[in-house]
């Protein structure tokens, strides 16, 4: 449960630091992916890609996710995975004594490198666009234009074979809309989670965070739950408390 504790530490810091004027300073627009958004935030602050800068923009990143009206974005899972890493980075920045596992250290390091890498390709993509759209380009000839067609049928291919091949092609046609639906179903959206928590709190006065995330939770779901709790604290629906540092987080309904 160490991860949950870290989330909680972050939760406290976040609540202390967040003020209204920092909430809406990211223009809500469509970012294709989490790295896109992160880069935009870093560029806006004119910072280099370092742990420190990532820790600084972690709040803005989370704000963006929270305030996104249409939370059922296709790549919510991708956004949330990065959110988890940012929380880790910020926890570490605020609590230097916090001991991270090798795996967690690596994750932080990876995010930094990934961002650097992505930034390079974004820049070079702009160069490519310029070259692609300039007037210089080559043309080739159609193949064998000057040659008259000669009947050369493939051996052993008749109706039965063509039907088989065609059936195969049909089977490989991707169904994009369905794929996207599946992805959305897999991730519980933030709003759903909030409703879900409210529902739970209407039966119970107090819930442990561990209860919330135990059944088949992956990191993404833990993060969604965390964001949901965060949102509810902000809206003063619940209060959060933790007895001691490694104890479970409890939250209670405000009556």
């Amino acid at each position, binding site marked *: 449960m160490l991860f949950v504790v870290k989330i909680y530490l972050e939760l406290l810091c976040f609540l202390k630091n967040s003020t209204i004027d920092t909430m809406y300073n990211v223009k809500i627009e469509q970012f294709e992916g989490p790295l896109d958004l992160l880069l935009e935030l870093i560029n806006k602050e004119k910072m280099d890609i370092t742990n420190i800068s990532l820790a600084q923009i972690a709040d803005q990143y989370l704000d963006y996710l929270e305030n996104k009206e249409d939370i059922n974005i296709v790549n919510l899972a991708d956004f949330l995975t990065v959110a988890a890493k940012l929380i880790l980075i910020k926890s570490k920045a605020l609590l230097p004594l916090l001991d991270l596992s090798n795996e967690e250290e690596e994750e932080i390091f990876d995010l930094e490198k990934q961002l650097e890498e992505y930034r390079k390709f974004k820049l070079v993509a702009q160069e490519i666009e310029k070259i692609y759209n300039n007037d210089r380009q080559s*043309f*080739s*000839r*159609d*193949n*064998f*234009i*000057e*040659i008259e*067609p*000669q*009947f*050369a*049928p*493939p*051996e052993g*291919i*008749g*109706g*039965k*074979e*063509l*039907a088989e*091949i*065609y*059936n195969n*092609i*049909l089977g490989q*046609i*991707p*169904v*994009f*809309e369905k794929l996207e639906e599946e992805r959305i179903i897999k991730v519980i959206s933030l709003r759903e989670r909030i409703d879900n928590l409210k529902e739970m709190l209407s039966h119970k006065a107090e819930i442990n965070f561990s209860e919330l995330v135990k059944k088949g939770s992956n990191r993404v779901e833990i993060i969604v739950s965390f964001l949901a709790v965060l949102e509810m604290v902000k809206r003063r629906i619940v209060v959060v408390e933790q007895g001691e540092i490694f104890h479970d987080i409890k939250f209670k309904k405000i009556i």
Partner: protein
Amino acid sequence: MEKEKIKSIIESILFARGEEISFLQLAKTIEIKKSEVISAVDELIVQYQEGKKGFGIIKNGENIQMVTNPDNAQFVERTIKKNLQETMSRTALEVLAIVAYRGPVSRADIEAIRGVNSSFTLRNLLMRGLIIKSTNENDQRGYLYNISSEFIKKMGIGKIDELPDYEGLSKDKRVESIINLNVEK
């Protein structure tokens, strides 16, 4: 314009175009005098002959066309023959099957169904006489493709709709959805 530049442009145009083109049209395209075109072409012909290059330019009245050097004919024929004798690739068979069940079908639709560009494959199937193309009334730039009557005969059927499960396969919903998806995007 410099003569060397004119020659270079003429080479490019003749190469890419394939079909013959008139001196006048070349002059208009390059925005120079017809006499300049004629003189540049004459120089190119001499250069190709003296340099024993792989191509040449043939004149037909007011029209010219770039062709391969007849001295290399046996090698060109060998390439063509190899191409025809080669067993057909999986890609080619797939495009053939799509034309069979969906014909008359546009290149754009074939590409949407397979998710891969198919222009060279279509040319190869045309060259093998397995498919034929006709102009698309809805799209001036594009063509529609059908199975050739020779290949229909070769398969031992009288009409294309005698293919196995033609009714069901030719109207499969998955195809409609992917074609529509690409229209939207």
